């Protein structure tokens, strides 16, 4: 198309050029014609002007002749003479002008004749005039020849002029026709040109459109091309970049890799190796390159290695690890063999097969693994020996370690049946907070510890979903910090404190009762005082006042001589006697002297007699076997029993309407005293709780409890009431009473009575208990140490070290590993007697007589009194774990260790840690 257009356009353009050439030629021809015409026209004009000039010159000659003829003056002949010359010149010029024009030649010749004729006439006349006279001259003229010549000349000139004009006109017409032709040709040509140009224009336009389309298409194509190019370029760049990066990385990895990297060819010749490889095999880098791989393998493995290589080369595996399942052994340049782990890959490049081997020295790892296995065994042994449930959770809640006590604590049959992930436990257990609300899983101790919280003696109630059994666990928990400080797990210890809690609850209840008893005793005392005061007022004071008044009256009467003084004196005597009786009664009530003087039996007999006297009911005392004052022990016991009997009889007197009352007293050989008061009255309604208070029953019961005994009341509407008291007589010589002794028991033997544990003869565990036990005790918030059977400290935890550092013993010289803890306690006991029980408990655990010893002891600081719990537990092999836990003023979990800070520096028992 392009070419077609070019040809067409070229043809058209050629035609146009030709046309234009023709046009130019035509135009040039026309122009030259025109120029010729103009020249011809000038020629014609010149001929005409010349003829005219000749005529005028002739006229001038004639005029000059005539003027001369008229005037005779010579001066008029001047123009004639000048005119003659000029006329000749002009005639010559005209001849030249008409030369070549035959039609003019005739005229010219005639003209010349005529001019000559005229000139001749003129010259004749003038000559006549000059020589003869004017008249003659004139006569000549009158002959008219001159005139005729002149007319003839005029005619010739006119003819010449007209013929010239005519010839010109003829030529002109031919020229016009020629020009018209030319014009037509030009018009034709111009039209043709215009058409051609139009065609060309159309062609050009079409071509332009086509070209534009073409251009657009080209541009689109170019853009597409450019895009593709750019795309490929960028891909290429990325690829190149990646390649460069990969290469750089590879190089970097290769160079800086801790693992040794070797590349060998198919002939097992090392072609590349990194520095680590040289280091690993203890040879110069240069020595590796070019060496055979077999040089790095002990000889006895060469054959196996070759087989492996062949098998690998033919197999599909592009990369595989060696040594994962079997030991791969390397050989160092110095001959040492070592375990290694290798991964190998092969690559075909340009027909050559290359093997790349990455080698990792696993000597350390295998050692670590061995150590870890050993430590784990030790840890498990240590955990197994602990009576508290101990378990270690990883960050995912998997229980990586737990002991047998863990199974017992959670009511599993044995260790094997324990659930091993926290996630399984919500289906097994329900956990309740201290306030009784069910704890969501995130409030359980493992998630707490994994969040970084720690606590000591945090109590939760657990309940098995299957059996419904419920128990209380006291938990210690703490996160296990990793080397970088992040939490890598949690260690939790738990103890079933249900029994302890029950004892504590009973103790608390007992304490409350004691408070009531004391309050009641106080009330009783106050009431007694009031009663005594009233009696003193009612009886003694009034009697004495009256006696004084009477004495004054007697005096006045004697002074005035009145005779009624003896009557007054008799009254004074009566009043005095009454006052003495009152005093005795009051004193007797305050202190039953019969009880003191004659003993309980006599006092009770007297009480019976008084009751009979007061109420009329038959009241008697019945002594059961063994009842004697000697058996009744202390005065406090007698007094207590006396008061109970007194109160019971008061009740009978006030409410029972009884007719028979019996008091029975007996002593059993195992040291129990029984006092029993029976009546046959209306009986007491024990369902009516108000009776318990209103009848003084509570007071009696409290008195019985104060004696360490019990009071029982039986009542029925028809059989009356019986009140029975059972109290022990024998009281341990070392303590003031059962109530006083109980706190000691509760605090020192929290684990309950424990049978002696055989274990003194067991072999000692390895001195090194291993890092896991260390990290476990480090994770505990309290200060913990591990003792051997002689009491020597084997290891201490972080809190212990921190405490020691705070107390000026950062090197643990006075109380750290190597120091005998019993000696420390002995030294402390010399100055602080309250340490003695601790020393004893510690000895008992170390001797195997107790498995657990626990005590709570106070530390006085200038600010406050703080409490600590010391816990000693025996571990297999005669070891013992001692922990000191700061109880502060409460035992709630608080999630931090702040309760430890700054307390013990001034604590009296700080020497124990």
């Amino acid at each position, binding site marked *: 198309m392009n070419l077609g257009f070019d040809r067409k356009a070229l043809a058209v353009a050629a035609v146009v050029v030709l046309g234009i050439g023709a046009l130019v030629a035509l135009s040039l021809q026309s122009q030259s014609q025109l120029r010729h015409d103009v020249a011809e026209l000038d020629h014609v004009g010149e001929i005409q002007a010349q003829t005219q000039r000749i005529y005028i010159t002739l006229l001038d000659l004639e005029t000059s002749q005539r003027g001369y003829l008229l005037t005779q003056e010579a001066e008029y002949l001047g123009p004639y003479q000048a005119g003659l010359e000029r006329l000749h010149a002009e005639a010559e010029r005209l001849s030249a002008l008409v030369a070549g024009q035959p039609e003019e030649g005739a005229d010219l010749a005639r003209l010349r004749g005529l001019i000559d004729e005229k000139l001749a006439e003129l010259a004749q006349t003038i000559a006549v005039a000059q020589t003869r006279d004017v008249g003659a001259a004139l006569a000549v003229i009158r002959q008219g020849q001159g005139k005729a010549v002149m007319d003839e000349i005029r005619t010739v000139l006119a003819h010449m002029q007209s013929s010239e004009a005519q010839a010109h006109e003829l030529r002109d017409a031919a020229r016009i026709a020629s020009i018209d032709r030319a014009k037509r040709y030009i018009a034709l040509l111009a039209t043709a040109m215009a058409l051609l140009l139009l065609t060309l224009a159309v062609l050009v336009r079409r071509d332009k459109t086509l070209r534009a389309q073409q251009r657009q298409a080209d541009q689109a194509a170019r853009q597409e091309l450019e895009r593709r190019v750019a795309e490929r370029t960028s891909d290429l760049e990325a690829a190149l970049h990646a390649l460069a990066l990969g290469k750089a990385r590879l190089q970097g990895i290769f160079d800086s890799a801790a693992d040794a990297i070797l590349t060998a060819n198919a002939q097992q010749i090392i072609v590349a190796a990194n520095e680590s490889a040289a280091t690993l095999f203890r040879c110069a880098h240069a020595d590796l390159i070019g060496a055979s791989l077999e040089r790095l393998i002990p000889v006895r493995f060469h054959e196996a290695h070759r087989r492996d290589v062949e098998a690998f080369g033919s197999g599909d595996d592009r990369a595989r690890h060696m040594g994962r399942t079997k030991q791969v052994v390397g050989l160092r340049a110095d001959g040492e063999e070592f375990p290694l782990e290798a991964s190998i890959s092969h690559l075909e490049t340009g027909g050559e097969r290359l093997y790349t081997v990455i080698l990792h020295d696993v000597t350390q790892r295998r050692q670590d693994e061995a150590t870890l296995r050993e430590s784990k065994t030790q840890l498990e042994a240590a955990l197994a020996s602990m009576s508290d449930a101990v378990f270690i959770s990883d960050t995912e809640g998997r229980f990586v370690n737990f002991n047998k006590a863990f199974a017992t604590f959670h009511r599993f049959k044995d260790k094997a049946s324990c659930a091993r992930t926290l996630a399984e436990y919500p289906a097994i257990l329900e956990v309740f907070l201290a306030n009784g609300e069910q704890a969501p899983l995130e409030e359980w101790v493992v998630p707490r510890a994994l969040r970084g919280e720690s606590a000591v003696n945090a109590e939760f109630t657990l309940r098995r979903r299957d059996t419904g059994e419920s128990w209380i666990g006291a938990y210690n928990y703490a996160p296990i910090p990793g080397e970088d400080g992040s939490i890598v797990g949690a260690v939790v210890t738990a103890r079933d404190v249900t029994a302890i809690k029950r004892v504590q609850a009973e103790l608390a209840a007992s304490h409350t009762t004691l408070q009531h008893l004391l309050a009641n005793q106080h009330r009783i005392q106050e009431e007694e005082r009031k009663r005594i005061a009233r009696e003193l007022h*009612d009886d003694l004071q*009034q*009697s004495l006042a009256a006696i004084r008044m009477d004495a*004054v*009256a007697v005096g006045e009467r004697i002074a005035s001589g009145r005779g009624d003084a003896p009557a007054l004196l008799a009254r004074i005597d009566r009043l005095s006697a009454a006052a003495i009786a009152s005093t005795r009664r009051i004193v007797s009530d305050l202190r039953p002297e019969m009880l003191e003087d004659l003993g309980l039996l006599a006092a009770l007999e007297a009480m019976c007699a008084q009751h009979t006297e007061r109420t009329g009911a038959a009241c008697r005392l019945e002594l059961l076997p063994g009842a004697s004052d000697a058996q009744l022990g202390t005065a406090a016991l007698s007094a207590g029993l006396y008061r109970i009997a007194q109160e019971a009889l008061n009740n009978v007197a006030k409410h029972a309407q009884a007719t028979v009352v019996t008091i029975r007293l007996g002593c059993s050989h195992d040291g129990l005293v029984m006092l029993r008061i029976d009546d046959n009255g209306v009986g007491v309604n024990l369902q009516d709780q108000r009776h318990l208070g209103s009848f003084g029953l509570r007071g009696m019961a409290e008195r019985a409890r104060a004696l360490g005994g019990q009071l029982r009341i039986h009542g029925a509407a028809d059989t009356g009431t019986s009140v029975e008291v059972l109290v022990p007589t024998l009281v341990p010589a070392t303590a003031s009473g059962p109530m006083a002794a109980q706190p000691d028991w509760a605090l020192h033997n929290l684990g309950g009575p424990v049978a002696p544990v055989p274990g003194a003869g067991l072999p000692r565990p390895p001195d090194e208990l291993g890092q896991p036990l260390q990290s476990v005790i480090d994770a505990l918030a309290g200060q913990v140490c591990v003792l051997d059977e002689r009491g020597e400290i084997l290891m201490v935890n972080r809190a212990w070290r921190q405490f020691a550092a705070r107390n000026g013993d950062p090197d643990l010289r006075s109380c750290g590993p190597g120091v005998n803890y019993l000696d420390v306690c002995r030294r402390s006991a010399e100055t602080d007697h309250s340490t003695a029980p601790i020393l004893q408990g510690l000895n008992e655990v170390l001797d195997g007589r107790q498995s657990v010893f626990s005590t709570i002891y106070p530390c006085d600081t200038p600010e406050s009194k703080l409490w600590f719990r010391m816990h000693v537990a025996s571990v297999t092999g005669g070891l013992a774990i001692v922990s000191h836990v700061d109880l502060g003023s409460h035992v709630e979990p608080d999630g931090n260790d702040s309760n430890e800070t700054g307390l013990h520096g001034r604590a009296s028992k700080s020497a124990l840690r």
Partner: protein
Amino acid sequence: MKLVLVDDSVAVQRSFGGLLELVPRVELIGCAEDVAGARSLIDASDPDLIVLDLELRHGEHGMDVLRHVTQQHPRTKVIVLSNFTGQRYRDELLAAGALECFDKSSQFLLARDWIAQRAALAMEPAAQGSARPS
């Protein structure tokens, strides 16, 4: 001057009454041991003077008698003869309308003297009163 003795101790009633026997123009017209007895006696007899103990029978208190007298018998005078003689107690009794307070064990003679003086001062109206037919 008609006098009423309010005291829970019969011995004291008798002994103090014996002391008043020798005082001229004083007539002991009755004794009471508790508040109710005192009120009915006073209402019935409209005495000139009451000698009042504070601790009465059944744990009752003499202040109740004093209030009754000041409200119902404004003419009747009251003196306290009691074993309670603290200054604060005294001030309270005086504020409540008692004219004097005497200690029963040590000031009974002062009380008798006060009564005797009062009786002497009241001689004229008492004479007029006694002149009236009754």
